[in-house]
């Protein structure tokens, strides 16, 4: 079961830091990150892609779930 991180309402760069901390503590697990801005989606996607993860993004009424896995 993937961890779910709630980064909604967090200002830049907190969503990336939250994601980074989760990846650091458990690099091989999959993650779901909840955010509510395009900026956070772009920043996290860029960050995890460079780390070698795949990202799938689901949108529901301006809220986004980023499914992140190796």
């Amino acid at each position: 079961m993937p961890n779910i991180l709630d980064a909604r309402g967090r200002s830049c760069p907190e969503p990336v830091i939250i994601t980074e901390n989760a990846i650091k503590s458990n690099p091989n697990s999959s993650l779901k990150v909840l955010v509510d801005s395009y900026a956070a989606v772009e920043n996290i996607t860029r960050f995890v892609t460079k780390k070698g993860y795949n990202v799938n993004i689901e949108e529901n009424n301006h809220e986004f779930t980023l499914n992140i896995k190796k």
Partner: protein
Amino acid sequence: MSGKRKMFIYGGIIGLIGAILMKMGNPGNMGICIACFYRDIAGAVGLHRAEVVQYIRPEIIGFIFGAFIIAIFKGDFKSRGGSSPIVRFFLGFFLMIGALVFLGCPLRMILRLANWDLNALVGLGGYVFGIFIGIQFLKKGYTLGRSVEQSKISAYLIPIVAVVLLIFLVIKPAFIFFSTEGPGSMKAPLILSLILGMVAGAILQRSRICTAGGFRDAMLIKDYHFLWGILGIFTLNLIANLILNFDNFNISFANQPVAHTNQLWNFLGMVLAGVCSSLLGGCPIRQTILASEGDTDAGITILGLIVGAAFAHNFGLASSGEGATANGKIAVIVGIVFVLFIAYSIVTSKNKEEIQNKGVVKNA
């Protein structure tokens, strides 16, 4: 097009706009300066009475309109706020004090550098150092908390203020002050400034360029995405100035327009601006764009910037070409101590473990 190239071009257009606006009449090495322009607006509406820096800068109105329109069109416009507004106000306030002791916001620092004002190099060192300090707090769990959805009208207030300012600028009522000499009297034509401001606002909204974000991400997560935007601003401004403003080109510390050579205070002023930008999650440009997208926390930050500018000129905190003032030096030290205390208090008041537990929502 690659992300890097796109960011370089986006930044390059901002740099180009800066050079054009300078050519068309804006003050030296100040095609666009968010701090100076809010300071001029504060003077125009009578919040300070420094007669040489009073003008409703249409570029700021353009930024807000451009970002507002494109945000609505692209679905980025959203009413949100409630994330430590009073802290944001004071961070905005002290960010402006730091910027006005240096004599320019981080964007003007880059534009000054592109004209080889070497004092800006010292400012850049201070700004990066300030961001580095802010990062240490971010790593330790510094947060201003969550923003939440606000009533729709809240999101429209900053764009509405921009409309009112534009009306004042056009009809020039007696209670609005306009400089007849000094930097406030130096201006590009209104329509051109407004249109180029709108273009810049739209680009800044789409690219999310942030001077603080550029250096912060490079240091924090080794992500150079936004740094390419900053490099674009510098490079295109440099090239365009060589073509358009060659007479102003002067590689030196001395005799630079609207600048001084007190290096300690150039450095410390930008340390303060860097720490504040880092703790706010964005530089004055980014705050302006976020406010135009409906972020009321960024709107409060802008009010902090404007009040900071008013204080800076009412109480002799702002520097001049002669150098930093005694009051300005005291204000910078007080500001650095104050914002570090705020950040330290926030970090220590949070139980790190509790934050992590709250951040993880167990899958139902």
